[in-house]
């Protein structure tokens, strides 16, 4: 095992896959000479050449369109859209082209494409157009897999799998996590899409969370552990495919559940998870399904506003407390 940052785990995944398979290439704004805004592809041009590490103009529709076409004709593009917020200017290529191409063709074509975006999430005072969590939009569109890693280990393993996957994948990186550290194996490994990770085992309540929220939940779980309350923490890791079984098994065991996501709560990915539980594990529930997310407000700039906006450890703690009050 070695310690590595989330950022470097992503870099290693791309690098290893580009070494392994010469049909893999990467394109996007500032990924070449600059080496990506977070330094993910630094030195890649030297290693792989300008043909496989392609700086593009400021044309997100052209980037994704080109990636879709290349994926349909024998290559495995990794297309980078700087911040997830910018998918708004190329949304058609994601939802109507990449995602639907295979089905519209009657299953005759595959589109092995990875769309990576750097900047999910708030916490940087980057304001309303540079801080969103938009996973729920992609999750609702059939035909595309949605990956959102929370640790270096998951980041590397899931990205390698995504690149090898024969279907379009949107791989959402969280800007607050790039410089967090974790252990990964020295040797090669991959993580299948659609398998949730139980980040902590417990019997008293199930907390399902993603990306930056996982870390807050884990901290809160430690506090509860000291009081003898054991929280089961589940990170779905991929929203599509979603590991419904792991979630339901846990809920059936604990009977209590809280879902914590950073996105706007209303209409978010947490709603789907809650709805599935309310449909499929209803008879096991001993308390209302709790859900925490951001309020239905664009992300504010000012630090105290942003701090209030992002779901806090305190809020998580209090909500868990409230749910636990319900008798078994």
């Amino acid at each position, binding site marked *: 095992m070695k310690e590595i940052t989330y950022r470097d785990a992503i870099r290693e995944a791309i690098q290893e896959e580009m070494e392994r398979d010469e049909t893999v*290439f990467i394109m996007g704004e500032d990924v070449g000479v600059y080496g990506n805004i977070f330094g993910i592809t630094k030195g890649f041009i030297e290693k792989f050449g300008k*043909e*496989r590490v*392609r700086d*593009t*103009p400021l*044309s*997100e*529709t*052209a*980037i*994704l*369109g*080109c*990636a*879709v*076409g*290349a*994926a*349909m*004709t*024998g*290559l495995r*593009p990794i297309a980078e859209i700087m911040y997830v917020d910018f998918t708004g200017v190329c949304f*058609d*290529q994601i939802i*109507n*082209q990449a995602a639907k*191409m*295979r*089905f*519209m*063709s*009657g*299953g*005759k*074509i*595959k589109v*092995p494409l990875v769309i990576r975006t750097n900047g999910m999430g708030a916490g940087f005072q980057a304001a309303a157009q540079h801080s969103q969590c938009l996973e729920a939009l992609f999750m609702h569109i*059939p*035909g595309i*897999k949605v990956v959102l890693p929370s640790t270096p280990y998951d980041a590397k393993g899931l990205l390698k799998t995504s690149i090898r*996957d*024969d*279907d379009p994948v949107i791989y959402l990186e969280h800007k607050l996590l790039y410089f967090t550290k974790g252990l990964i194996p020295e040797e090669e490994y991959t993580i299948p899409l*659609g398998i949730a990770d139980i980040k902590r085992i417990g019997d008293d309540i199930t907390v399902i969370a993603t990306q930056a929220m996982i870390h807050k939940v884990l901290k809160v779980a430690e506090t509860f552990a000291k009081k003898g309350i054991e929280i089961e923490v589940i990170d779905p890791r991929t929203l599509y*495919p979603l590991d419904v079984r792991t979630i339901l098994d846990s809920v059936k065991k604990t009977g209590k559940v809280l879902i914590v996501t950073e996105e706007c709560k209303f209409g978010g990915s947490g709603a789907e998870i809650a709805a599935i539980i309310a449909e499929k594990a209803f008879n096991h529930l001993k308390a209302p399904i709790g859900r925490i997310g951001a309020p239905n407000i664009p992300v504010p700039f000012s630090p105290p506003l942003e701090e209030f906006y992002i779901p806090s450890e305190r809020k998580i703690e209090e909500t868990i407390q409230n749910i636990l009050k319900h008798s078994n």
Partner: protein
Amino acid sequence: MVSLIPKKLLLKMYTTMLRIRSFETKVAELFAEGKIPGLYHLSIGQEAIPAGACLALEKGDYLVSHHRGHGHMIGVGLQMSKMFAELFGRETGYNRGRGGSMHLADFDRNILGANGIVGAGIAIANGSGLSAKLRKTKQITICFFGDGASQEGSFHEGLNLAAIWKLPVIFLCENNQYAFSYPSRLGCPVGVATRAMAYGIPGMKVDGNDPVAVYGVVKKAANRARKGEGPTLIEAITYRWRGHWEGDPDQHEEIYRPRQEINEWLKKDPILRFREKLLRLGILTETIDKRIKKNIETEVEKSVKWAESSPYPDPKEMDKDVFATMRVILE
């Protein structure tokens, strides 16, 4: 120009135009009778463009089409039977009934498909262009779109990227004077070909009702692309005879197109014009002409019959076609 082209090819162009027209005339008929479902955008009147352009391509070249794409498909030799089967929504159709007219494709022949989103294909064409370039295969990509598409952001981004990367792509705009009801003289007053200047690439305007002229410019653009010199923008001037889609009342009432204008263009029928030329040059005779038409008639009838008698797809099988690696859950 005509004299430089082998007779056989000229006859093939002529036959291709006739096949497109017959196919689409049949589509109009079947739709009017309620026999085929969906939305139909016919290219009757525009047949010279696919006939000229597709014959200038080589085997293995990529083709990207748009909503008005039947002509392109027939131009590169797709089978009418499987096309009709698709329109009938049958399992034997090119898209196994999942796509319909707006998504016709044949990946075995590198026909990357029609598209329901105006302009989307322009961006996608760069992908097959880049793919061929990186794989060093000398394949080129031809991308068909309308005058309306040249008003979309994807046109700009797509052409710019192709120019910057010198991608082997031919952007062929079929300027049929209207984007639905919106006249191209309003939407693009300078003319689509002029827009090539914004990207520093060649822009060529051509008579889109003359298959030989179209063949000529496409051949030239294809050579350029194959030599690695980059993309070309071609604007082929033509006219759509029918409504924007089948059911467009403009077909019968004067809504956005003056009758006078339509009548002028009807006189420039690309098929009749070419027929006369070929007859004059002795390349075509009345006997051969009749035979060609008879054959096509038979082809159409047989194709429809086959299509109509093909089985519908099984809804329970849809779950397999969304992803290559997994089935989705049907509830």
